[in-house]
């Protein structure tokens, strides 16, 4: 099985602090990868490094087997990588539909002059159609014309998801998609993600472990900026290093004792 995305030996330092240390990640086609770990483990930093928001100090980046330099953030879209943001990150002055249209622009034929002379109507219409489709996927059709400030938090997360989906990327990076959602909504999201898996390869950063368990094929556990365990969730969960990271050392020992019994 070939890797769609491969990150090798990634390190990121802030000042003197090592936020990520020699991290290797592989993402296969049509796979959902969970990225978990306690607070401050470096999950979001890893996402930010992949999406070019923080510069890596070392590390190799390869896409579909081809080595490439670390992408700049705005190049991600063209590489077929879409990402959602933790703080949702919608454009507050644009409607939900327009938000999604912005996401689709990487696919649109570009032309400042066409915009200037108002002849971009056709591609506008295309963008709009694509955006509507993406909104439909994310279950957000109903509020296409609403401003982000008029949306509930779960609804705005749907719009953010639609904005990522509209790119029709190869890889979808979802940053805490379940945070702030209620139980039912999390259920729906899990279903959606398993549908999306048919078309996309997905990496999810999430602290709701139950959710991660439900959706992921494999997980990576980070702590102190290092991968401390990886593999199928069930296996990882039994890993004493993971327990120690989450619960503290002695309780992990207790737990191990418990399973031993």
């Amino acid at each position, binding site marked *: 099985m070939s890797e769609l995305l491969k990150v090798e030996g990634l390190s990121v330092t802030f000042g003197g602090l090592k936020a990520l240390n020699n991290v290797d990640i592989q993402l296969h086609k049509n796979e959902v990868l969970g990225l978990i770990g306690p607070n401050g483990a470096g999950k979001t930093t890893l996402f930010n490094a992949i999406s070019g928001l923080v510069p890596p100090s070392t590390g190799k980046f390869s896409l579909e087997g081809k080595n490439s330099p670390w992408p700049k953030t705005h190049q991600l879209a063209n590489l077929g990588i879409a990402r959602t943001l933790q703080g949702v990150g919608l454009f*507050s*002055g644009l409607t939900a539909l327009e938000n999604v249209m912005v996401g689709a622009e990487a696919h649109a034929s570009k032309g400042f002059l066409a915009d200037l002379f108002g002849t971009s109507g056709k591609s506008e219409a295309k963008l709009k159609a694509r955006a509507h489709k993406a909104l439909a996927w994310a279950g957000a059709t109903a509020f296409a014309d609403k*401003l*982000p*400030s008029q949306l509930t938090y779960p609804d705005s997360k749907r719009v953010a998801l639609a904005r990522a989906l509209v790119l029709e990327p190869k890889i979808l990076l979802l940053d805490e998609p379940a945070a702030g959602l209620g139980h039912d909504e999390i259920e729906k999201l899990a279903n959606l993600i398993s549908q999306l898996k048919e078309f996309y390869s997905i990496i999810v950063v999430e602290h709701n472990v139950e959710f991660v368990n439900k959706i992921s094929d494999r997980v990576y556990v980070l702590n102190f900026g290092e991968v401390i365990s990886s593999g199928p969730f069930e296996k990882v969960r039994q890993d004493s290093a993971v327990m120690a990271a989450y619960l503290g050392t002695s309780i992990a020992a207790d737990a191990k004792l418990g399973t031993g019994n």
Partner: protein
Amino acid sequence: MNTFISTLITGTANGAIFALAALGLVIVWRGAGVVNFAQMGQAMFTTYIASNLINSGESYWLAFIVALISGSLLGMIIDLLIMRPLAHKKSSSSTKTLAATIPVIASLGILAILQALAGIFWAGEERGFPTPVNSFYFKNGAGTLPFSAFNLFVIGVVLIVLLLLTYFFTQTGVGLGMRAAALNPEVARLSGIKVSRMRTLSWAISGAAGSLAGLLITPSTNLSPNTLDLILIIAFTAAVVGGLDSPLGAVIGGLILGIGIALVTTYGSPENVFLAILFLLFAVQLIKPNGILGGKQVRRG
């Protein structure tokens, strides 16, 4: 007398005043997160008040004190009436991105109002402004020394103010509280410091510093509603050169500007002064965006 030395001294005396004005900008920027474009408008207003007092026969020193007090009061009023409500106002989502620019616009509105009021009260008339001490250059036998008692007075006053402010900010509890409120409002509040009161205080101190700059510069520039606009630009440039976050930087920036302008005027052409200021401003922002002594943090705004 040696041209270079006299240029240097003239530049230093003016630079000290620019430093004071720049310091006023820095104090409000650090304390309240606002670059106050109305600062020298406030100074213009209080200098007119002082000028009126002097013209009506009161002593210079009474006018001096009244100007400083009204400067700090004006600063406080601006904070309480305008800036605090603006800061407390929940920014609606559509204007969130303008949040950083709204105080700037507010300060411009204040400037417009102050200049209009100066027109209404004083017909915008151009006036001279006296010096408290003799401004005749010292004589040394037949020659003239390159400085006057007033030059010494200006440098002395600015030095004393700088020392007082340094003492205030580093050695007193209130000063510590103001710095804390500026650097990390949340930790400051958790330490029991009343952050909004500290902000008002920084407006007051900055207002007084600006007023003092106005009192000291107008003897050589005259007083009119617009003369001090120039000083604002110079002070802003000085603050950016030194680093908007750094009080010491403001002082150094002020001196650089003062001496630089004197040198350009003497050895270059006075027509190039503005272009030189513009050039300096661009150069600093491109090469060292946080200024000579600015912090490392990404600039706000």
